[in-house]
């Protein structure tokens, strides 16, 4: 408002009437400051909560899902979602229930079809014994979060083979998020190493690496992924394909990250405070560790969070067109393969629920990334 923005931002804090708060503010560490600012960023906190929930669902998919990923319910093929209720014509119940099914024959085609039987309730119980599984692939267990006593419950409906979409979506969430995490970590690692080499040696090595990143960046991303994914041998196991996918996502993802990191690094190097440290006789290693890295880690974290959506969308897209993960592995992209044409939407619109998960996850990562970026900016003292 008055003269310069930075002066203004510092003003009220410097002369703050709340002395104690000001003291707390000045003695806080960088990460405390970032956390305080982030906490005030409501959208970012919502995003973070959603991601935590997703991570929980993915990690404990076996527990949350009532059935296995390939278990079929032949009674209920292309069945619509069953919505839990608390009351109907027959009155109120504290325990939520869904209706049972009865099998009838279609009078014209004589095919067996499932009909909802509103006369019979199936009550939902929690922590029930279900199909056995191994938690984290190790601990044998039978307890599932919820289930019904007889018959089956399909919260999100079933697909063409009668597989429970809710269960499959839980497994897919774990697979898609983990592949995203591994892919992003690999990309960040590569970016740091390669960017570090470029920054450390400088000169023609830096030049060469920059040209290389430019060339990788100029090729359209998804077609490039497709080219690499096409090279997977057909006979590879699902685990092999899974890890190969993360490698590809990392390989194609690093140039963008490396470029941004290098940009930050160069900008930091020219800052006055680095010059000041150098003039006071600090060595390069000291400056990098003590001055540049702290200001830098926040950028790295922000960049990593921001690049998540791209990796997740890439995985989804690749699996969607059949060049990524392959069934029986379940990922968001694989689930969406069932929803590839208009007929699917007309017949079974619930097959689109996985897309909702993708959208929500991407949105959550985006707002969290934006919030982190604002929070990590040391000059954004007053912007909440």
């Amino acid at each position, binding site marked *: 408002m008055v003269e310069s923005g930075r002066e203004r931002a510092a003003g009220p804090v410097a002369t703050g009437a709340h002395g104690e708060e000001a003291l707390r503010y000045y003695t806080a560490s960088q990460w405390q400051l970032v956390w305080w600012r982030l906490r005030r960023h409501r959208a970012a906190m919502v995003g973070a909560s959603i991601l935590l929930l997703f991570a929980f669902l993915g990690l404990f998919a076996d527990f949350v899902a009532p059935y296995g990923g390939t278990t079929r319910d032949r009674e209920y093929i292309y069945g619509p979602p069953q919505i839990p209720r608390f009351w109907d014509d027959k009155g109120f119940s504290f325990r939520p229930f869904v209706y049972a099914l009865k099998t009838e024959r279609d009078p014209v085609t004589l095919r067996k079809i499932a009909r909802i039987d509103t006369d019979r309730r199936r009550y939902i119980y929690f922590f029930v014994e279900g199909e056995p599984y191994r938690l984290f692939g190790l601990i044998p267990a039978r307890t599932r979060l919820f289930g019904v006593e007889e018959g089956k419950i399909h919260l999100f409906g079933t697909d063409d083979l009668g597989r429970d979409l809710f269960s499959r979506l839980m497994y897919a969430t774990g697979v898609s998020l983990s592949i995203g995490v591994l892919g992003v970590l690999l990309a960040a690692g590569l970016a740091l190493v390669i960017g570090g080499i470029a920054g450390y040696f400088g000169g023609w090595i830096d030049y060469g690496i920059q*040209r*290389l990143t*430019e*060339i*990788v*960046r*100029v*090729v*359209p*991303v*998804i*077609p*490039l992924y*497709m*080219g*690499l*994914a*096409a*090279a997977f*041998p057909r006979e590879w196991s699902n685990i092999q394909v899974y890890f190969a996918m993360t490698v590809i996502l990392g390989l194609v993802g690093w140039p963008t990250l490396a470029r941004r990191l290098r940009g930050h690094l160069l900008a930091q190097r020219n800052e006055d405070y680095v010059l000041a440290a150098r003039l006071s006789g600090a060595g390069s290693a000291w400056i990098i560790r003590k001055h540049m890295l702290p200001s830098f880690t926040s950028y790295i974290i922000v960049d990593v969070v921001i690049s998540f*959506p791209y990796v997740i*969308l890439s995985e*989804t*897209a690749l699996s*969607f*067109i*059949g*060049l990524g993960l392959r069934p029986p592995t379940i990922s968001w992209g694989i689930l*969406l393969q069932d*929803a*590839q*044409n*208009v007929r699917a*939407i*007309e017949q079974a619109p619930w097959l*689109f629920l996985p*897309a909702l998960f*993708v*959208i*929500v996850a*991407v*949105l959550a990562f*985006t*707002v969290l990334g934006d919030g982190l970026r604002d929070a990590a900016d040391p000059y954004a003292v007053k912007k909440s």
Partner: protein
Amino acid sequence: MLRFLVQRAIGMVVTMFFVSIMVFVIMELPPGDYADRYAFRKFSGTGVSVTETDIEGIRKQFGLDRPAWERYLTWIGGIVTRFDFGPSFAFETSANAVIGQRAGLTVVLLVGTLLLTYLLSIPIGIYAALRRQSLADYGLTVVSYLGLAIPNFMLALILLYVSVRYFGSTIGGLFSPEFEQAPWSWAKFVDLLKHLFVPAVVLAWSATALQLQTVRATMSDELNKLYVDAARARGLPEWKVIIKYPARLAINPVVSTVGFDANRIFSELPIVALVMSLPELGELLIKSFLDLDMYVAGAILLMLTAIIVFMNFVSDVVLALLDPRIKLEGG
């Protein structure tokens, strides 16, 4: 100016050289070689037993027994000298024939999408910057978040669904059935445009969301610059101040990212094309990767990248014309 153009043109050729090597490596990546797949495709199910010598023969016929660098030179040589992208075994013809018309259609779709993106994002972004923190501005922010989060194939499916459900016609494909076989006419052209419009909207969706934010951010920065007040202090009418000064600079980042946008659009093209059954390069690329028809895939990858590199070149030149601060002599 001439020196600048020549310099950038040389840069373009160098980049394409390295890209071609990368594409060649990708073509070589899948297990087995062309001869294996050719033999498998041609003779499997026919009852003819294929011996190792037969495959050896095919290998010789296509020159696969020679070292990789020699094969690269033959391949790239054919492209550069004869514009020959090699054979397509899946269609048993040349890659050129398979690609044919699809290339033109792809370019039309790209240009259409870019135009749509800029026609939407520039004015709306400028408007949002002028009305910062208004309801309209917040609304646009939400829309552009969604633009980034909704996968485009999803949007394509929704639009297809809407058109089937409420308009009783499909917008997939290139032509309505009645024009499919018809000779070219004005009506057929209009029909083509109608069919291209929806894919262009789908493809422009996320690019617009991104550019909108860029334009808005740049415009907000520029609006706070002193020269805007200086222009007002000279007594210019407000609209003239806005359009001549900050808006003029707010389009620079858009111009500088034309290549990036093209990259993005090509990245999304295959999947959208698959969903909307558009006969263009992206869809063919998926098919050829699935069939391991690598000469066709390589040709498409090379073409798409060449278009992007050319777009980068155009954007460099336009930017230099727009901004006098960019030195035309410097590298």
